[in-house]
């Protein structure tokens, strides 16, 4: 109902008269909407979500059940007569310098990359949540001490740090040790993100309300602050899974990663580099597998971040 009163020379804005009961009416059957539901709805609208989702599923499947994808053993009955050979029936990508089937080596190397990624992410998430949450929530000297500890690990570029750790543990190189070497220097980024988010959340009204009714500090942290601060952590986690896979491949490539007896894309790339001129296939195919896996996780991270961050959504 617009008010039509108009004087001769003054413009009067139309007056929107909404009755109080209309404003107060709550539609009970409205769809519940919260950050996670909104994000989920937003994600499903993007083609990148499906592409990366399918790729991640495929990579996981290959890592768990490599024998579903190839019957050729990756390191047994390699014939040196096939050294750097071209593709043959049943060996679609050709042979490595040792005469092993490239496709089979790629398939069997998947679980190495993926398990390093997963172990590192579990480690960084536990350490990051512990340090970040306590530093952010308790503040003061606790924050100062924990943040400096984080700074120490953060300021060593983590490939360099992992090189040192792996040189120290040169006798015991395995998937777990290499994940430890990467993870122990990668957690500060998770901690920093969570700390910043908790600093933002802990001044919210609902936290104050919980304090006012006498909820304990620890319970406020676990029940009210943490669930509202986890969104950026999920993004960092997805991205650091990709980074960990790259780090493992880089370390193996440098020769301080997994021993050459392990099936690892980094090792295969490293071993193929001297024959780049004559037999590029032994280097190119594992590289492609590595890049696609990393790309899948980075894409998933992007999609999740865009969905969880309305500000990012505006610039898309």
């Amino acid at each position: 109902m617009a008010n039509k009163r108009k004087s001769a020379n003054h413009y009067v804005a139309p007056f929107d008269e909404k009755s109080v009961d209309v404003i107060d009416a709550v539609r009970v059957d409205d769809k519940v909407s919260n950050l996670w539901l909104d994000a989920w709805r937003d994600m499903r609208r993007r083609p990148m979500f499906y592409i990366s989702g399918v790729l991640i599923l495929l990579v996981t499947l290959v890592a768990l059940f490599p024998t579903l994808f190839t019957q050729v053993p990756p390191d047994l009955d390699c014939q040196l007569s096939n050294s750097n050979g071209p593709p043959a029936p049943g060996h679609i990508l050709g042979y490595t310098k040792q005469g092993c089937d490239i496709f089979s080596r790629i398939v069997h190397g998947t679980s190495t990359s993926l398990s390093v990624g997963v172990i590192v992410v579990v480690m960084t998430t536990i350490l990051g949540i512990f340090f970040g949450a306590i530093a952010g929530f308790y503040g003061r000297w606790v924050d100062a001490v924990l943040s400096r500890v984080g700074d120490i690990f953060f300021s060593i570029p983590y490939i360099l740090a992992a090189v040192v750790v792996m040189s120290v543990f040169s006798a015991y190189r395995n998937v777990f040790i290499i994940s430890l070497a990467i993870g122990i220097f990668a957690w500060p980024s998770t901690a920093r993100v969570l700390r910043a988010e908790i600093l933002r959340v802990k001044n919210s009204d609902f936290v104050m309300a919980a304090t006012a009714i006498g909820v304990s500090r620890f319970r406020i942290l676990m029940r009210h602050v943490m669930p509202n601060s986890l969104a950026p952590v999920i993004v960092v986690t997805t991205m650091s899974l990709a980074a960990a896979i790259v780090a493992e491949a880089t370390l193996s490539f440098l020769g301080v990663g997994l021993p050459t007896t392990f099936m690892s894309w980094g090792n295969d790339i490293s071993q193929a580099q001297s024959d780049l001129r004559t037999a590029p296939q032994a280097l190119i195919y594992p590289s492609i597998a590595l890049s696609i896996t990393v790309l899948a996780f980075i894409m998933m991270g992007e999609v999740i971040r865009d969905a969880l961050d309305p500000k990012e959504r505006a610039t898309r």
Partner: protein
Amino acid sequence: MLGYTIRRVLQAVPVFFGTTLLIYFMVFAMPGDPIVALFGDRGVNEAVAEQLRARYHLDQPFFIQYFIYIGGVFQGDFGTSFSGQPVSEILASTFPVTIRLALLALLIEMVIGIGVGLIAGLRKGKIFDATALVVSLIFISLPIFVIAFVAQFTIALKLGWARATVSGGAPWEELILPAVVLATISVAYIIRLTRASVIETSQTDFVRTAYSKGLSRPRVVRVHILRNSLIPVVTFLAVDFGVLLVGATVTEGIFNVPGVGRTLYQAIIRGEGPTVVSFVTVMVLIYLVVNLIVDLLYAALDPRIRYGK
């Protein structure tokens, strides 16, 4: 500003001691006796071994060793490589090459990253923008050694536009290909950063004001949008310079660039633990100092930083 400087430098002190102590501790935990390793297959001459242990302070307890080392660092003595050459001497001969490579990479990052990012941001949602986003995402996910090998294989070996490896003196023109490889991942980040920043700035009130008072589009873009969008990009570039200085190990190794990174790469390949560690320590120190300088510069440029918490 003075207060901020003091606070920031004081913050760097525990980090400095923490990082060096951490690395030193890891070396201390390294299995095997380095002196015994020096003798190789020949038997150990105990008298010589004792003398060497005393010379390298290996007979001292852990903390004494650490403080002797730190004392040396403050006097410019970073230890000795396994071949007997002082690390500071190796640094003096290799660091200039690494600096040149990093500068070249930084230049490429600025020109391509900001240029593409600006165009993409101004044409948000158009085909150029979409392509830039997809391509940059792909580059972000390519490990640097994959990029290096692909570049070496196609550009150097197949097309013959550049040398596959850099020759002794590392002339500028031969550094271009390694610099491009070194820059690619950062370029991708800068494109995305610039783009997001340009889009954000374009929606501000002062840009709308600039248009409405009749300024031409090129002028608004140059003076109002670009300048204000560059603040986060400049920070990224500054921090990235530190990363480029210490992170060129793989690239320098593959292209045989005679810089610090290659020296480290070769020490890793040969399994010379102590040399690796002294180089890593030096690189971490360089990285810390560069970051400190960046933070101070940033606070000088942007008053919000030093007053805010």
